[in-house]
């Protein structure tokens, strides 16, 4: 799966879960600081991403200030290891 495909999938999830405009969901955006997605809402995003991409993501991979790009890389890393 390409970075673009994962990015698009996350944008759809963020729109659904957090009401973000897909245009603002860029790889360098921080969930907490730029997208108003706090740590609890991020748990919901991660669980939705796990279901969408069929992966299991460790919560340790995502810290305060994590970006959309960090989550994309986590998903890619898990997918590559399969």
């Amino acid at each position, binding site marked *: 799966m390409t970075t673009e495909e994962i990015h698009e999938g996350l944008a759809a999830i963020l729109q659904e*879960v957090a*009401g973000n405009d897909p245009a603002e969901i860029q790889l360098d955006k921080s969930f907490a600081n730029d997208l108003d997605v706090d740590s*609890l809402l991020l*748990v*919901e995003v991660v*669980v939705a991403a796990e279901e969408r991409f069929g992966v299991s993501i460790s919560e340790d991979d995502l810290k305060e200030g994590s970006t959309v790009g960090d989550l994309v890389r986590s998903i890619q890393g898990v997918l590559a290891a399969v």
Partner: protein
Amino acid sequence: MRAEHAPRRRVVITGSGVISPIGLSTAAFWDSLLAGRSGIRRIESFDVSDLPTQIAAQVRDFDPEQYMPRKVWRRIDPFARYALAAAVEAVEAAKIEFDEELAPRVGVQIGSGYGPSTVQSQVTLGLLEHGPRRVGPFTSAASAIDSAAGEIALRFGAKGPSGAISTACASGTSAIGEAMRWIQYGACDVVLAGGADDSVTRSDIASACSARALSRRNDDPENACRPFDKERDGFIMASGAGVLVLEEAERAMRRGAPILAELVGYGASTDAYHPTAPHPEGAGAQQALRAALADARIDPSEVDYINAHGTSTTLNDRIETLAIRKVFGDHATRVPISSTKSMTGHMIGAAGAVEAIAAVHAIRDGVVPPTVNCFDPEDTELNYVPHTAQQHKVEIAMSNSFGFAGHNAVAIVRAWKP
């Protein structure tokens, strides 16, 4: 006989909000009541084929985005969405702003009987089917009965006391009455008070059916709720919310607030008799009626309108009639008594709140809403306001709520006179 009382802070109502099966604002709700419109329909939001009761009064065409951001409504139960929406309307109507000085003096008290029924069943089903990972991060907050109060406080920055009183079908009235005390005793200057429930769910309908409390007139929804009619066969489950802005009177006058009425009395009691059936002589109901009248410092003969609990169950309507007869004596045959549940169904925790709002409007408009479907009255000497609204000069109105577990609560509102 009037005892001497210490002066106490007066409490006025400066705004209201309603989300109901017959209107998504106070104005729409009141118009429907006066027109005698029923909100009862066949349930279409979930499978009812195996339920003895297949009808209810649900909130329809409600769009939460009009009142709150997506991430707020997604994390809370429908009952809390209705409460927040009603609070938004009430605060706008009261033209009140919660600045830094006022915020610590603003309380929130939102009663509910069943609370977040939908969230609770989703959690259970999700846990069984998918395991703990599927239990969402906001579940702890959203599956609690105080979640409506918490979200309202968060929205408006209300930093005084907050919470949820739960007294079954009396919760809305209890919330308003207890909130009045907060202002009277000086704990708050303003309280957003009311009730909310969304109990039109498979589990709540099934449990109320098992308690033999619901009407089974499935083929005739609009005639199913018949308070005080001899052919009544149970109540109709309904969803909704009602919120009032209660405010200390002098403060409301200073800021030139739109004062709708004064909240003058509250009485509460408990039957301590049976989990669902009322006391056979309505002892607890009488006690609450008398307590509210004493609190309002008025004689029963001064009451101009009673918004009855009037659920359309065999027992409630008979015993409420008996209690009114006992407490009001001769005046019982003169005072108009109506059940607006005949149109709204029974909104459980929201009922007392929206019915208090109906009582306020009866005072302001000089008209009392009808009891629809009351064709063959329980007591032929009482004026149950059958079928159509009636013109009456109303200075003092009473709103009754009697719940399962024997919870009784009565509120009294009065035309505002400085």
